[in-house]
């Protein structure tokens, strides 16, 4: 084992740090609406123009083709510079749709979509979950019927983040009505401006309306928009996951250490109701120090996984463990900050920039439910890491 960075790694860190120091937006991201999506597009465009877009993407598709370790460095520097959060309206396009097209898209699909994703010109949303298919994704029912050169889609998708800002959607539907479970699904690129689509925002407990239900009433999607094979959509969806190499939450993993540091700084200034400095309260300082250890372990685990993947080319089975650790640490940090902030923690107008800790506390449930609930992650660990007898 070793903890050595190569000269190229150190140079990359220095270069990234220097650029971020002068280029991170000074204005806060608007909380809602199209101005927030425009803010994300502008930041992505800036990254693109200066050669920082697509850190994980291969060079031949316009990305930087960074090693896993250099991606770690990039996200550490983003956190240090307090750059715009990477989970924004560009997230699905950059972390999910783009990689899927790279793995399974046709030449035409790649040539048309990839540059637009990298430059922030097109935003994507995800249409996988349904009102009756969440944790059990393979039970999805939205139908697609081939009619001439189109697939006609009817049904509903739920929990679609940023559907109202998306230009395109990755849409997973059932094209073989006789099929069960993972078979008979198709992965489609769906243009969000097609007739027959109706987007209904779902207001969340944060007060925002980023999440939507999307209804499809005989929406005609060209067959040329199929990614992979018709009825082979599950394989396409899985290809994305292996490309991600378990790095879907890498930014959250690495920013935790910074955020714990900020909470310690806050505890050194904030006074509790009785006048005690928060950091002098044993319940608070011990939790903060323990969370720092958790954040360090998450970083060590990230580095271990990434170096292993860089060496073997195969992601390890540890993504589920990471998700549990990161979501748990995130929530515990929000709770202890809530404790020290006292009544101020209860002031909230839905604006993440204005009330970051309260927002993140509320978001902690979104974090531990979306992208595979913590319960599903425990099932994955029981099956794939521990080899316990199947529950289902």
């Amino acid at each position, binding site marked *: *084992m*070793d*903890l*050595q*960075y190569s000269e190229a*790694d150190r140079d990359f*860190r220095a270069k990234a740090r220097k650029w971020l120091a002068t280029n991170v937006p000074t204005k806060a991201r608007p909380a809602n609406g199209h101005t927030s999506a425009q803010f994300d597009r502008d930041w992505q465009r800036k990254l693109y123009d200066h050669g920082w877009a697509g850190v994980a993407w291969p060079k031949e598709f316009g990305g930087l083709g960074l090693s896993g*370790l250099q991606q770690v460095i990039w996200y*550490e520097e983003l956190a240090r510079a307090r750059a715009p959060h990477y989970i924004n309206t560009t997230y699905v396009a950059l972390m999910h749709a783009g990689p899927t097209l790279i793995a399974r898209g046709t030449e035409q699909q790649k040539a048309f979509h990839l540059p637009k994703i990298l430059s922030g010109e097109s935003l994507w949303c995800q249409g996988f979950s349904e009102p009756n298919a969440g944790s059990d994704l393979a039970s999805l029912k939205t139908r697609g019927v081939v009619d001439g050169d189109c697939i006609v889609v009817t049904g509903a998708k739920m929990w679609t983040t940023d559907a109202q800002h998306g230009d395109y959607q990755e849409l997973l539907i059932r094209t073989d009505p006789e099929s069960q479970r993972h078979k008979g699904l198709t992965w489609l690129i769906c243009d969000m401006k097609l007739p027959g689509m109706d987007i209904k925002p779902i207001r969340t407990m944060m007060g925002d309306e980023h999440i939507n239900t999307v209804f499809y009433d005989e929406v005609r999607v060209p067959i040329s928009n199929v990614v992979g094979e018709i009825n082979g959509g599950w394989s396409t969806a899985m290809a994305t996951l292996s490309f991600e190499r378990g790095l879907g939450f890498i930014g959250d993993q690495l920013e935790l*250490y910074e955020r714990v*540091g900020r909470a*310690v700084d806050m505890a050194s200034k904030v006074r509790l109701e009785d006048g005690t400095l928060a*950091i002098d309260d044993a319940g608070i*300082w*011990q939790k*903060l*120090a*323990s969370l*720092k*250890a*958790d954040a*360090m*372990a*998450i970083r*060590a*685990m990230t*580095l*271990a996984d990434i*170096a*292993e993947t860089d*060496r073997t080319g195969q992601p390890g089975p*540890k993504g*589920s*463990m990471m998700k*549990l*650790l990161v979501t748990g640490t995130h929530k515990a940090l929000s709770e202890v900050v809530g404790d020290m902030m006292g009544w101020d923690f209860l002031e909230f107008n839905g604006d993440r920039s204005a009330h970051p800790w309260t927002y993140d506390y509320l978001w902690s449930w979104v974090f531990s439910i979306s992208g595979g609930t913590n*319960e599903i*992650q*425990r*099932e994955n*660990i*029981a099956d794939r*890491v*521990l*080899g*316990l*007898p*199947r*529950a289902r």
Partner: protein
Amino acid sequence: MYLVPDGDELEIANAAAEFLADAMTIDRLHGPSPADMGDDLRQQLGDMGWYALALPEEVGGSGLSAIEFALFFREVGRQCGPVDVLAQCLAAMTVTDAPLRSEITSGAVGIALAVTDSAAVRLFGSGDAKYAIWANCDAAELISLGDASTESRPSLDPSNSMRVTGASTSSIASRSGDFVWRMGQLATAAQLVGLAEAALDQIVEYAKVRETFGKKIGSWQAVRHPCADMAVRLEAARSQLWFAATAMKESRRDAGVHLDAAKHLANLAAAANTDTNIQLHGGIGVTDEHHAHLYMKHALVLIKMFGARRDLLGRLLHASVDD
């Protein structure tokens, strides 16, 4: 950058596992009195060179690094090995007198582990130990037990005898600085990770065969999910342990911070995993004949050594790490 043990590191770990599973089988702990090292086992480990594993070659050691040291002690932990093993290693790092050092590394003399307990000193390890090693962040000291009157105390943990002696004992050798303390922290964290692993392995094996309500208990989510949580705690503690061991090997400026975090997380993982292991076993888990309680009792001893909660967290709160 690589943070998974591999190559020669794994060979040492496998050799240790094989040797210890035979020499230090956990069944030894089911007797009526503490299963102390005793001369035979002490010298057997000395003959194999385990006490000199991380000593420099120029003083007769194997010259291996903090990484192999940690890998060895993880295996010691899995067998609920006596703390004497660590005491011998740390004593050999502390003395400069060559004949005494070789007596220690060969296992010819026994070393106990001393911890300060209010005005007294508490000793863990074989009753026939001639010396005791004591360390903190500033220094390490080898003390003679020759003339000291010691009082035996009943030990919860059958891996070690426990004794108490007055604080005034005579110093034989000392080493200033935090090196010995840090290696003690590393080895203790590694043993706790070994215990956390052993506890998880034990319940996973049981969950695959034991049945309730007509199904293997490992297919019930009430069992699966706590097992998954055990795996997560273990993975966090183990990853941080590898980071800390490598930071020690490379003499990184922030090695101490990583060790404090590693010990803290190992404390948590061992406490929780040995606890859950008993609970998920059901009735058999509280019986004397089962190993589950041995893991828990040994963890309780190691959790208090080389940094307990408040001590570790106090240092971690304002500490920072490098890139």
